[in-house]
């Protein structure tokens, strides 16, 4: 296997949110298999700039899978073919010489395209602002075991907290539902003592905001879980449903 690839890229280009947009095809040669996917796009952009063309806009920041900024639909799969991998962690060795790669932005009514492959994910920020926090200042690290947390609960909270908010769940879901994201943001607090006091208010407000943003509803297809780079489990969605039901029936709000 040679470690240089010649590729055909079919990339969604859209000048702004009003523009109708469409696919453009680019030829790229001499791409090293050791490059990351985003580095490959960097090479393309350098070529475009050298030719006096507009580079392809795409979101990226940390490039090490922790910030959740990168967001590409690669050949119909959110973050590309690898499980538990963000676009920035995807490497060109996953592709073959002569491949055509289709690159699209996340598509959801709640995630309007800003430009090319960049979408506006501020709907997620608004959902978190609606209740995805603990209001009290938790101060310095407390003495060990002053607040007992069973190890399983701590694990569940940490697993949920692994969500990087990239939006792959929405992108992969046939209903563009944000329930995996919201369920992770609810669950990371719901199982911990620090999150309990605001538990009801949090879930009610976050779900209300989620609905306001026009995301779809979960039909338990579980594409989100498969696409999630942080391996957030759909059992969190069941917890979200339970939390919501409990809060609706018992809370004062």
């Amino acid at each position: 296997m040679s470690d240089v690839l010649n590729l055909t890229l079919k990339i969604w280009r859209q000048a702004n949110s009003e523009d109708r947009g469409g696919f453009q095809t680019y030829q790229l040669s001499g791409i090293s298999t050791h490059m990351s996917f985003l580095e490959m796009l960097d090479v393309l952009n350098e070529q475009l700039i050298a030719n006096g063309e507009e580079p392809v806009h795409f979101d990226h920041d940390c490039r090490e899978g922790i910030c959740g900024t990168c967001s590409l639909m690669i050949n119909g799969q959110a973050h590309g073919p690898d499980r538990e991998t963000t676009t920035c962690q995807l490497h060109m060795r996953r592709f073959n010489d002569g491949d055509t790669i289709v690159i699209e932005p996340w598509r959801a009514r709640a995630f309007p395209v800003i430009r090319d492959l960049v979408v506006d994910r501020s709907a997620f920020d608004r959902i978190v602002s609606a209740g995805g926090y603990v209001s009290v200042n938790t101060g310095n690290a407390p003495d060990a075991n002053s607040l007992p947390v069973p190890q399983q609960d701590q694990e569940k909270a940490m697993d949920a907290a692994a969500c990087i908010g990239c939006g792959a769940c929405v992108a992969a879901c046939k209903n563009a539902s944000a329930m995996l994201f919201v369920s992770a943001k609810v669950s990371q607090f719901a199982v911990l003592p620090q999150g309990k006091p605001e538990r009801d208010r949090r879930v009610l407000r976050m779900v209300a905001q989620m609905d306001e943003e026009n995301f779809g509803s979960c039909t338990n297809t579980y594409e989100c879980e498969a696409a999630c780079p942080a391996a957030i489990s759909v059992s969190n969605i069941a917890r979200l449903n339970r939390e919501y039901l409990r809060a609706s029936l018992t809370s004062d709000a």
Partner: protein
Amino acid sequence: MNSLVRALTSSVGKKFVMGITGLLLCGFLVIHLAGNLLLYVGAEQYNHYAHSMHSQEWLVNIAEVGLLALFAAHLFLAIRLTTENRAARQQRYELKKSKKDDPTTDLHADSWMFISGAVVLAFLLVHLADFRFELRDLDDVAYKTTTASGEIIDKEPFDKAVALLKNPISRWVYLIGSVLLAFHLSHGFASAFQSLGMSHPKYNGLIRVAGIVFAFVVGIGFASFVVWAYYLE
């Protein structure tokens, strides 16, 4: 009251109602299938069962209203949710591929719930026209019979059922309906539990398997009556 309305009109609430109505309708399927199995026991037993059930007019009325409410809610939400979910995507992908690697999802029953549900609804309407409202234009054949003295009387439930099941239109509608019902249940049963918030690593596998088994039993069960009637002299 306000909070209840808010809860039931939220995305989570709608899914909850979808799940609970679905599971209650599964309960109805069990009862209906069990009753129908008496067809295999014998005409006498089946007729006895049908007569004693219909002699409880009150109970039948309550059950019918309850079932109608369940179906109406399930159907209304199916249309609502499907429209909303379609709208939430806005623009389709040029290319879309699953990242799941679970072979049991190969048939993608979860992506066909609206369509399979619609076929089941059509089946249900024909079935109600056949049995409940006796609307099918089959008078002499299905609903009435002539006694030795030349008097025209209602057929016994067993004879009526056999006549209707032998009808070439009903036969195919029922057969296709049963298969699609099984397909619908193969996702719907387990999905309902998740929507109701019931998920636990200890039981999830069991629920999924139970859903598939339930789908097979119900599908084969109902389809078998058509096959049985076809070969009945």
